[in-house]
């Protein structure tokens, strides 16, 4: 949740970064569209045309974002604390990397624990322990009862199939 307009009207660097991102996205689309076979049929509009229209729209929006950035017309976010964000992202990346190695329960426990740590819960091992119990319950309910196919690891084998 961000604050409203800031009364300051200095140029905003963030607006230029956003505009660059939009232009980059447009470039990705245009490069891809150039490689598509143009097959418009009766419509005269093929698979590459709508992406092109979207890309031109993005370019136009990028230009307007630069203009509004020069006028300082972008909300100014409050000071951000980087550590909690990194804890949560770390938890997500850990889950992504470990999911197929240690299974849903352990990787989920890590995600839970690191997120809780990001929100100020200490010590980390206690948060992970709570996460372990919770993800065991979720695995039991969703994989066993609701037939969702969650990747299992050694722990799941031990508890649910052993």
């Amino acid at each position, binding site marked *: 949740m961000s604050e409203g307009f800031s009364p300051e009207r200095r140029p905003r660097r963030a607006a230029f970064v956003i505009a660059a991102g939009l232009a980059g996205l447009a470039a990705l689309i245009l490069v891809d569209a150039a490689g598509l076979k143009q097959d418009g049929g009766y419509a005269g509009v093929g698979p590459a045309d709508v992406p092109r229209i979207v890309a031109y729209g993005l370019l136009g929006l990028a230009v307007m974002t630069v203009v509004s950035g020069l006028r300082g017309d972008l909300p100014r976010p409050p000071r*951000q604390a980087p550590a909690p964000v990194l804890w949560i992202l770390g938890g997500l990346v850990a889950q992504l990397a470990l999911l197929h190695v240690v299974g849903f329960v352990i990787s989920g426990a890590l995600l839970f624990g690191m997120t809780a740590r990001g*929100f100020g819960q200490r010590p980390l091992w206690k948060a992970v322990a709570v996460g372990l119990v919770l993800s065991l319950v979720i695995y039991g309910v969703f994989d066993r009862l*609701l037939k969702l196919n969650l990747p299992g690891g050694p722990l799941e084998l031990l508890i649910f199939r052993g």
Partner: protein
Amino acid sequence: MESFSLLMQGLSTALDPVILLYALIGVTLGTAVGVLPGIGPALTVALLLPVTYGLDPAGSLIMFAGIYYGGMYGGSTTSILLNTPGESASIVTAIEGNQMARQGRGGPALATAAIGSFVAGLIATLLLAFLAPQVVKLALTLGPREYFALMVLAFVTVSATFGDSSLRGLTSLFIGLALACVGIDGLTGAARLTYGVPQLMDGIETTTLAVALFAIGEALAVAAIREPPDGMHRVRGSVKMTGEDWRRSWKAWLRGTFIGFPIGSMPAGGADVASFLSYAAERKLTKHPEEFGKGAIEGVAGPEAANNAAAAGTLVPLLTLGLPTTATAAIMLAGFQQFGLQPGPLLFVMNAELVWGLIASLLIANVMLVVLNLPLIGLWIKLLSIPRPWLYGGILLFATLGTIGVNASPVELGMLILFGVMGYGMRLYGYPVAPVVVGLILGPMAEQQLRRALAIAQGDWTTLVSTPVSATLLGISAVFLVVPMLMRLRGRGQVLSQVAGDAD
């Protein structure tokens, strides 16, 4: 009377004990999750979608309907007791409701919200049942160009009309449209924007995007701010409303319903617009103007009713035209699509039993909610006091569960993280997230209709404005795009930004 007999048939489907159980589970889960601070109906629906994967289509959609109504309901509890509403549509409820709670009148505030939601839900669902067959008849006469024009209108209202900047709203929409291009082109089978990654062939999952933007983006934004959370207000005394409360509430409920339903059923903004207008109407009509801003019960009763009536109203374009007008509706559309069902006029013909069972279940879910919520209010309040580390840990675990359950590939989880970071950035700089979700799901549909219309007209673009209906719809879209821009230029934009919400 055709609707009536169909509705009766639907009721006989919905009264099946197993289906009743599904509706009950849906309503309970929806309320429980919707009550959690920071979780609006869109996220409730996205988080709970995996719960329904294993069921048959009828059971799943009916549970889903319960989740939707329950989520709407739960949000009002949060906004009355905490001053951080979980859903944008409840922001208005929070103005008066929170004041009432501060004065120890939280009980009657919760009661008028609950009963008002019930009254509005009941009337609006009946209106939906009687209106839907008419709209279906109308919809069958529409061709591709009219559908395209309708979708353009939905794009404009969801992105540019409300909020504090058309530029940022349109930017969000175009990001959604760009993401919508990823995958196999529906008409020619060409693979677009996949860059050789096979997992991208199927396109980007709506639920992955919605969960990432709403849950992960929100969690990151909340974690980074670290402001002390607002204290919760104890509910003292009874939840009973006095005679005076009833007298002041019932007219507000009815007015709210009749403001909310039409707004919800037109592609013109969602529940947040409706509740805002209802609040404005109540403030104008009240006999107690001095109480407004200090806890006027009409200010809770009207907007809550409008909010729920609009939620039922959005089902009209969703079910009859396949047109989602809010992020919540977009996720519900994804719920239909997982079973290969495409909402629209044909659904009423091909799956009549399912549609009418669904509508009847909404009526039943509504009754369940009022029966469940008044006695269980103490339990929901306990949910509000879950410490934030556990709450957000659980939200993230659930958020990834849905993605892992459908497709446990690293690419899918990577997209979840990427869009989560994008959602965080968008929150920081005031970009609304709902247009991205609507753009993603509506983009390919609009493209198909456009290309079909052009194919019929042999590539003549003037075909888009060649019928009165399509020309009028595109004209209204242009007005909705330009007028708000002029209003903002003249410094009258505050009204529009107040109406805006990012959770709906």
